[in-house]
């Protein structure tokens, strides 16, 4: 079968483009080398929907960021993913910072970002009392937001799927060639696909995918960012995202609430040769936490429940590449989509989809349904809703994850969707079972049982995140 469009990568860029393209009549497939949607950078970043005051005026980053950020509210209505406009401060710790703050304000105006102002340290602390006394001034950006990036990508994927798009996982693309007008795409497991257009949305590997076929070479340098995440108990620390004003000492790190009321502290910046290496480092975690203390001196060390890191896809042009390849007809490149890639993603996707649709002369899909309903979470229900839900499906009354209060019905729903959860991490990202303070200590065996039942596997075949990551090595001795 020949696809109209084959998308490599199911991060926020790949899934958003898939969803935009499903508005047209086209055969679309998304391939990813991992076991699930959103296992790359999209699962490990700050999750900030930047207002757009940071990017250089005139750059693609500025263009797509500002437009993308404005699309979130509407998308949230259609796709039902966690997003909130919580506002952000850029904190300045010395009077010297004033000029830089003015510069940011000026950029905001040039980029067309509304709702920015400069306020005093005392005003900051009136809004966020836990902010350090050392803060003298700040830029306030009212329209800055937070989003759950992987849940957004999952929502995009599910909606694309419902509108006919196909997804295949564990498909590591290793060869890309072109015969006449068709691409031939080969994956490590020996599958071959043929497509008219290939969308290169492979994140940190988008240089390699491009370089497989194009003479226009790119080089992406990985730069690791490490985070620590605090228990929900400490959600009082801040409702607003707290950036630090860049100084001679470096870019600073942020302290922000997440959509699920944890507090996130990070990221650091460390160049890395291995672009898939998201291992955290001792120094990095120390640095993230210590720098976080500058913004909020009362950050509790004992409140850390987990740590993670993500890799920035830094490309030497220092701006996004979002275009058809100049030398390979039909290859659509998304290269160097680093921050604010997430905030920009809706605008990037609609721009890319439009260009691709024009190229293929696609006609609109009359059956396109823009609505995707999220998984119903019992933790968000009122008493009445709970009663009704349990009457409908008793499994809503069976709590599996105690920390985040997740029911068996939600987990089964997550597995049955398309593309659905296939492993513990997939369940975790969709319903938060295992994301709470005990970090799966309690619910691992229970989720394994549900996965085994739903996917018709034996317990010792269940994995954490796909091949090679089995939870157990077998049965015990008799």
């Amino acid at each position, binding site marked *: 079968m020949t696809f109209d469009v084959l998308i490599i990568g199911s991060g926020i860029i790949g899934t958003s483009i898939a969803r935009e393209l499903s508005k047209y009549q086209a055969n679309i497939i998304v391939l990813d080398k991992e076991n699930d949607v959103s296992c790359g950078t999209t699962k490990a970043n700050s999750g900030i929907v930047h207002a757009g005051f940071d990017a250089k005026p005139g750059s693609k980053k500025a263009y797509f960021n500002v437009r993308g950020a404005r699309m979130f509210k509407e998308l949230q209505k259609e796709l039902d993913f966690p997003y909130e406009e919580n506002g952000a401060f850029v904190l300045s710790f010395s009077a010297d910072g004033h000029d830089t703050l003015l510069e940011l304000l000026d950029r905001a105006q040039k980029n067309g970002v509304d709702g920015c102002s400069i306020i005093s340290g005392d005003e900051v602390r009136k809004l966020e009392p836990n902010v350090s006394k050392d803060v003298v001034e700040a830029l306030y950006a009212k329209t800055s937001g937070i989003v759950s990036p992987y849940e957004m990508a999952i929502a995009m994927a599910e909606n694309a799927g419902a509108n006919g798009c196909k997804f295949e996982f564990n498909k590591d693309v290793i060869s890309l060639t072109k015969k006449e007008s068709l691409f031939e795409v080969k994956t490590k497991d020996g599958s071959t696909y043929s497509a008219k257009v290939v969308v290169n949305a492979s994140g940190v590997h988008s240089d390699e995918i491009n370089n497989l076929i194009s003479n226009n070479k790119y080089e992406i340098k990985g730069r690791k960012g490490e985070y620590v995440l605090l228990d929900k108990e400490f959600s009082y620390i801040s409702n607003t995202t707290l950036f630090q004003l860049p100084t001679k000492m470096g870019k600073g790190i942020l302290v922000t609430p997440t959509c699920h009321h944890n507090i996130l502290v990070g990221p650091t910046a460390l160049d890395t040769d291995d672009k898939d290496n998201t*291992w955290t480092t001792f120094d990095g975690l120390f640095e993230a936490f210590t720098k976080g203390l500058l913004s909020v001196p009362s950050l509790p060390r004992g409140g850390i429940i987990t*740590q993670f890191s993500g890799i920035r896809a830094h490309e030497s042009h220092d701006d996004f590449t979002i275009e058809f390849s100049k030398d390979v007809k039909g290859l659509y490149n998304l290269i160097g989509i680093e921050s604010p890639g997430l905030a920009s993603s809706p605008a990037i996707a609609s721009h890319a989809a439009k260009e691709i649709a024009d190229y293929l002369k696609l006609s609109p899909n009359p059956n396109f349904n823009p609505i995707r309903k999220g998984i119903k979470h019992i933790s968000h229900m009122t*008493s009445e809703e709970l009663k009704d839900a349990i009457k409908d499906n008793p499994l809503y009354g069976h*709590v599996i994850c105690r920390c985040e209060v997740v029911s068996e019905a939600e987990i089964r729903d997550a597995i049955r969707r398309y593309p659905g959860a296939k492993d513990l991490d997939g369940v975790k990202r969709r319903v938060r079972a295992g994301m709470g303070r005990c*970090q*799966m*200590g309690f619910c691992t065996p229970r989720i394994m049982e549900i996965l085994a039942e739903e996917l018709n596997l034996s317990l010792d075949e269940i994995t954490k995140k796909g*091949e090679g990551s089995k*939870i157990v090595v077998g049965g015990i001795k008799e």
Partner: protein
Amino acid sequence: MKHVRLLIIGGGPAGLAAAVSAYDKGERDILILERENKLGGILNQCIHNGFGLHTFKEELTGPEYAQRFIDQVVERKIPYLLNTTVINVNNDKTVSALNEDGLLEIKADAIILSCGCRERPRGAINTAGSRPAGVYSAGTAQKLVNIDGLLPGKEVVILGSGDIGLIMARRMTFEGAKVKAVVEIMPYSSGLNRNIVQCLNDFNIPLYFSHSVVEIKGDKRVESVVIAEVDERLNPKMETAFEIKCDTLLLSVGLLPENELARGANVDISRVTRGAIVDDRLMTSVDGIFECGNVLHVHDLVDFVSQEAKEAGEKAVEYINSSAKKEYEKIIVETDGKVRYVVPEIILKNDNYNPLTFKLRVGNVYKNIKLEVSADDEVIYSKSKQVVAPGEMETISLRTKEVEKMRIAKSIKVYLRSEE
């Protein structure tokens, strides 16, 4: 809304013993809510011997110990609901719980929280590296092995020498896994000495004190861990680092009382025990809400849990039956730096004069000391101890005579005195 006089949340050993004692004190309107599909709590997965030496003078397995109490509950026909998770407790003693029949809304005259504790996760120990499969809390591994019959891994390193970790070292060895090391950040174990002997020494499993795991390696599944010695401030000395190949890291790095429900009801929580601050009736800062067992403070032996719970059951019944709510003057029990905590932390003035038990833990290993209690300036209790350690909970049983003195005192102190 349903009404019960005594609601017990959690059907582990604490909840069961509390229910039985409340019944025996005359209360007939009791309900136990348990989220698992059977009563018994964490004991159901502790299939090793060693429970009940104090209570029954014989060595039972965890499930056997639990069964003794389950039988007593069943004999008394005390009602309980399984597969029922309490999701909310309010300070007016209304409670919401979920099960497959729907949402239960209950109003109680008194509540006993006996929801046990949970294990601290990996995040709490700040280990760098990858996040692969193969890192489990010791309790999770215990459940996988003992309940589900699954082997988590073949080559194991255990971080933390808490009791569950020690027990799992032996258990995994029995199942054919190779336990390569137990690594403890402190210069002493937080587990019982008998477990170190029976679970490690007997199997030649090395125990590294003052060491910690600083890095976990392996993308999909654990491939090795890096271990380093730590200095007095518990910071790793990287120059001492060495690597051990393994496919599994079990964490036994401490237990935390599970007090989400209590927090929701605005119960004051101790920063040290992470359980509620209770008075000598085991009542929390919220009138009519009691705590006992591991939710109050982590016990190392279930026998002490049962004793404490018996008391809680009795006091809850006294509370329900006392028509007029009395206001008490409170005395806060002070400790020195060496005694980390004492439960109960509050003594009510001029209340009844029954015997009373203090339970406490020290913050370090101390040798040749006296464990003492003073009321104002008088030492009312003193006991010599060769050694006290954080891993072993100490109890102080005070007789009526001593309790009397305490109840009229201005200050009460529990402390260690070094013996010359």
